[in-house]
């Protein structure tokens, strides 16, 4: 009986000791092992993330290199970091983390490059147990608990990384969705503004509306045919030369050099920022078109209401004419020979103002206006929003007969009657725009009497504004109409009135290129119209789209 009691007490004692050992030795061991494993795994994760997202880390695995230039392939731009490469970076972070955690905690591995072997925590624990001087049961029990804790910690770390990854993916998704929504919204607003304001861009060379201009990188001149929000970038993209290019007009895309996708000709600078107004300047040979355009440009520039050349060609031509002294002697101007003219592009109006317009002035050779075939091929006529119709007063028979021969020689009088030019032009204009012959055309016409300086001569035909130096627009219209009627051009005026809904009349001289200076005639004081006035009148009254 005494032995039985002793035996039972012994068993209880052993159980009590085991409970104490589990509670105060193995339990803490397990918790420490879990914590060590967890902390090591998280440190490895953070280290891998810092290395993986190092701003200047390797990029070969991202596969973002721009495609080789091709005539119809994708644009030579880097793929956006958020359109895939960020996930490749993160995949690298995860694989590095798991490889390191496995090697450090579970099973060591040999590094082939350094020939060193990483010994894992689990291996170290079992090695300690094998060589421990503690009783085998204690050592192996402790080792088993520690290894179990290390495994549990590693599994916990995987759970931690999984939760972080989900949150990271959600944040990344929100960022991408936000950027796409911003770009999509901006693009939509941009298209709406272009539509509402009637802003388009046309090629000044082939006269086709450029719906998809080709933009060139200002640094390496690479072609970007689809410079819109997309995989290479939402708000901006990176060209192959690392130049950052905006994808929206609001971000500065309009300032990039652009080309026509049809003929590759240069499109106006800062295109798609202002409505375009196409104005052909029509007249027979030597009627004074080119001189009028030069003096009109000069006055637009000097008025200070906002003027900018929209292409280098127009600027160079203007400067060449200035150097040649065209505004001092119109005979120095070079005769227009191109029947299919390249538009002369200028901006009129202050930058950023709603009144700013991109003016396309067409100066077809006078011979083209004399030929119905040439006019039929003039594609620019289909964009016409207004017309400048030049009349050389000395081309009118009655005026010629009253004018001194020396004056006629000096002004290089045109031989083409304006009525003939008008009829051919009207026919071509109706044909290109498919306007019915019965309707009056909505495009306004500015009829411009050139060479008015020669009308100041005491002999010959009088100046239309003689004695009307301070008259209003309507009084000037009436004065020119009366003058043309007296010059036997009643048919021309009737034709104008029948064909066009809005017509106004102007009298200009090359001498007013810098400043409009009133003069004197035998019939009283006279002041020509500002050479810019016909264009400004047309810009204010442009035909509806």
């Amino acid at each position, binding site marked *: 009986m005494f032995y039985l009691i002793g035996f039972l007490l012994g068993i209880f004692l052993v159980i009590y000791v085991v409970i104490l050992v589990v509670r105060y030795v193995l339990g803490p061991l397990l918790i420490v092992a879990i914590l060590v494993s967890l902390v090591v795994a998280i440190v490895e994760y953070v280290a891998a993330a810092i290395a993986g997202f190092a701003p200047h880390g390797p990029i070969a695995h991202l596969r973002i290199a721009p495609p080789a230039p091709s005539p119809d392939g994708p644009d030579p731009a880097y793929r956006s970091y958020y359109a895939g490469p960020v996930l490749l970076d993160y995949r690298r972070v995860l694989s590095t983390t798991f490889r390191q955690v496995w090697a450090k905690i579970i099973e060591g591995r040999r590094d082939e490059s350094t020939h060193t072997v990483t010994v894992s925590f689990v291996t170290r624990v079992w090695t300690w147990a094998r060589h421990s001087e503690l009783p085998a049961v204690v050592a192996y029990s402790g080792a088993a608990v520690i290894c179990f804790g290390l495994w549990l910690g590693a599994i916990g770390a995987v759970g931690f990384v999984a939760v972080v990854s989900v949150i990271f993916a959600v944040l990344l998704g929100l960022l991408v969705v936000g950027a796409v929504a911003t770009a999509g919204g901006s693009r939509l607003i941009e298209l709406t503004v272009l539509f509402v304001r009637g802003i388009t861009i046309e090629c000044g060379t082939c006269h086709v509306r450029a719906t998809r201009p080709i933009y060139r990188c200002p640094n390496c001149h690479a072609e970007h045919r689809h410079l819109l929000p997309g995989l290479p*970038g939402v708000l901006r993209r990176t060209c192959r030369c*690392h130049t950052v290019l905006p994808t929206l007009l609001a971000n500065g895309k309009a300032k990039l050099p652009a080309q026509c996708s049809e003929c590759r000709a240069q499109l106006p600078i800062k295109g798609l920022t202002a409505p375009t107004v196409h104005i052909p300047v029509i007249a027979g040979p030597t009627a004074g078109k080119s001189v009028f355009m030069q003096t009109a440009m000069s006055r637009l520039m000097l008025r200070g209401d906002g003027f900018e050349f929209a292409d280098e060609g127009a600027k160079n031509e203007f400067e060449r004419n200035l150097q040649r002294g065209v505004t001092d002697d119109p005979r120095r101007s070079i005769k227009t020979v191109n029947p299919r003219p390249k538009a002369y592009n200028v901006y009129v109006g202050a930058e950023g103002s709603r009144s700013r317009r991109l003016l396309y002035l067409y100066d077809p050779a006078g011979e083209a206006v004399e030929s119905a075939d040439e006019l039929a091929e003039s594609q620019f006529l289909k964009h016409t929003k207004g017309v400048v119709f030049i009349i050389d007063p000395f081309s009118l028979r009655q005026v010629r007969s009253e004018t001194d021969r020396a004056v006629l020689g000096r002004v290089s009088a045109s031989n083409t009657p304006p009525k003939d030019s008008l009829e051919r032009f009207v026919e071509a204009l109706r044909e290109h725009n498919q306007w019915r012959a019965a309707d009056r055309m909505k495009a306004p016409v500015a009829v411009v009497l050139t060479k008015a300086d020669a009308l100041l001569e005491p002999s010959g035909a009088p100046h239309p504004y003689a004695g009307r130096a301070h008259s209003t627009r309507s009084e000037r219209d009436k004065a020119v109409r009366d003058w043309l009627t007296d010059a036997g051009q009643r048919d021309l005026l009737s034709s104008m009135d029948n064909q066009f809904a809005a017509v106004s009349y102007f009298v200009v001289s090359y001498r007013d290129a810098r400043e409009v200076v009133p003069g004197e005639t035998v019939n009283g004081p006279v002041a020509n119209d500002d050479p810019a006035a016909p264009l400004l009148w047309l810009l204010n009254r442009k035909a509806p789209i």
Partner: protein
Amino acid sequence: MNDEIPQSVVTGRKVAMALLVIGILVTIALVLWLIASLVTASVVV
């Protein structure tokens, strides 16, 4: 080497790292909240 890395990647990686740090902090906060709720949970007898 640095010259060959587009600025968009440099910026993108900085932003991604910031998002990851936010993710880690949020997860740690979640774990601590979970532990705190377990520790302070009322025991039903």
